[in-house]
């Protein structure tokens, strides 16, 4: 008891000690967030600029204009496709990595994580060089080989956006599944084999359910990052194929309609929080036994 008291000190000590961190968090996260939310209720006009009133004009505009529906739908469609593809490619990739022998394991893990060290912009421009227009390396080669008659559209398409985002997001999925695989009992596959299960059954019935939490938490990370990604959609999507983040950017910096941009940004934030918290709940309930 006395040891506990000696360590705890005065009652206000914890608050004092955490005050600097708290102040920083309030200053750079909470205050700007509150200001953005407030901003989304202000009025804006071509000639009068921002008027500090409290109206629902921006929100009503987003609610009623089909253009905004289209952009938000595209944002979540792309994020969903990217999540599915990273899961479908990343989970087997992580499993194969975990089964590799010692030197190769480390080398290939580095190959998977390596892209994280390169700027997203550089990586996306790389994709543009490979696929962009009829001058892209891949399209040129396929055209010259006669495999395709016209270049595969890549730039300014959703397909291009998805492909580039999958590449950017892959490490997060692989690392997440990798962590789940590390907790797998190494004997468990042998146990299933000895009970007469085929290799495919072992993967489907034994390994997959146990790494499912890893896949799902990876999916949540990838979905959040893909839905709020900016660099890749703005380079591949260009000015016309917009997602929520590039739309907000345009409203702020090109149209200068800050209140509308703020409303778009806040809506994206709310939608993401709802989707992530919701799916996390479902995952935790469904896989309670595996998580513990």
């Amino acid at each position, binding site marked *: 008891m006395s040891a506990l008291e000696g360590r705890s000190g005065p009652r206000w000590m914890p608050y004092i000690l955490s005050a600097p961190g708290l102040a920083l968090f309030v200053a750079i996260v909470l205050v700007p967030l509150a200001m953005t939310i407030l901003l989304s209720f202000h009025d804006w006009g071509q000639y009068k600029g921002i008027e500090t009133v409290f109206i629902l004009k921006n929100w009503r505009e987003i609610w009623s204009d089909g253009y905004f529906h289209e952009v938000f739908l595209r944002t979540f469609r792309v994020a969903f496709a990217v999540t599915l593809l990273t899961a479908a490619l990343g989970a087997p990739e992580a499993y194969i990595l975990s089964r590799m022998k010692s030197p190769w394991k480390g080398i290939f893990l580095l190959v998977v994580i390596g892209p994280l060290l390169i700027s997203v912009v550089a990586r996306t421009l790389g994709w543009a060089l490979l696929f962009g227009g009829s001058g892209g390396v891949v399209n040129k080669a396929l055209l010259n080989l006669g495999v395709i008659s016209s270049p595969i559209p890549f730039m300014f398409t959703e397909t291009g956006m998805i492909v580039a985002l999958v590449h950017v997001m892959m490490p997060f999925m692989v690392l997440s599944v990798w962590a789940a695989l590390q907790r797998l*009992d190494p*004997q*468990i596959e*042998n*146990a*299933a*084999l*000895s*009970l*007469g*299960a*085929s290799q495919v*059954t072992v993967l489907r*019935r*034994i390994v997959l*359910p*146990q790494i499912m939490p890893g896949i799902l938490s990876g999916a949540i990370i990838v979905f959040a990052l893909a839905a709020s990604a900016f660099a890749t959609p703005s380079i591949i999507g260009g000015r016309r194929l917009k997602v929520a983040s590039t739309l907000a950017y345009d409203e702020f910096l090109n149209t200068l309609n800050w209140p509308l941009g703020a409303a778009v940004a806040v809506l994206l934030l709310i939608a993401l929080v709802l989707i992530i918290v919701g799916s996390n709940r479902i995952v935790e309930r469904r*896989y309670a*036994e*595996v998580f*513990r």
Partner: protein
Amino acid sequence: MPFLVLNGLTKRFGEHTAVENLSLGVEQGEFLALLGPSGCGKTTTLQMIAGFVTPSSGAITLAGKDLLAVKPAKRGLGIVFQSYALFPHMTAAENVAFGLEMQGIARSEKARRVAETLDLVGLGAFADRYPRRMSGGQQQRVALARALVIQPSILLLDEPLSNLDAKLREEMQIELRQIQRNVGTTTILVTHDQSEAMALSDRIAVMCQGRIEQIAPPHEAYERPATPFVASFLGKTNVLEATVEDGRVILGDGRWPAPGGVASRVRVTVRPEKVAFANGGAPSLAGNVATRIFQGNHWLYQIDTAHGRVTVIRQNSGETVPREGESVGLTWRSEDMSVRPDGASP
């Protein structure tokens, strides 16, 4: 011909030979223990029988058929792993049912056999529990039930009790033995725990550095160890250097008849519980009590003699016992000691 035959089984990992020219026969219904220190090749042997490790050379036959030609999934062996390797996302009943499902057993029969086997291991009330909600002993029973329910031709146990605490381990030993007797499954146990091997098995194969040193029933291996390694690995033993004169082994004032044809310098091994304190003036090995430790049902002594330190275990039968620092004489029956020429490894 025995039920399971290992013939000239060898496994090399690069330069290292894990198992060397191992031959062994196991009768139907027998409980055999592979006993040895870690790295002696016992687990590799088990893994070769299970099919997870391919032998470098040699043959394994089960009921006259070549087992090596059969895939691990088709061998129909029941295996209990050291870590239990239960499927954490399935309940106890689902774990046990998995093997039957793989055989395509009909639902009603499957349910009946799962319930039966869970009852057999005393877990009838825990069918719907997930492994992480169970104690180590309960998980162990689920692992056993999962291996037994497929009615395996052989049950392989890989250090099954090593993750349990001492009291639970003893209880499980008794239970495991009873279950094996009731079901009658041929069983191979891999363990480094000599008391576990002796408590459970019909025969013990003591292994050292990839070879079998001795195969014998527990009592025989303990009383008449074939090699010095077996003597030192199975239970505690005293090794004393002695001389032989006129066909007699001489240790201090003690004289014991020596077996014929041994050298003049010998090593005598004798179990601690076979050594008695000489009463009266009978010729004996004189010593001084260095330490005396009370262990409930017995006393453990360390006695310094001219031939080295001797460990003595005496039953706590209530008689007066020597104190530390007291001089004592040690004696034992000649049939309780074994005599080997000096130079053999201890």
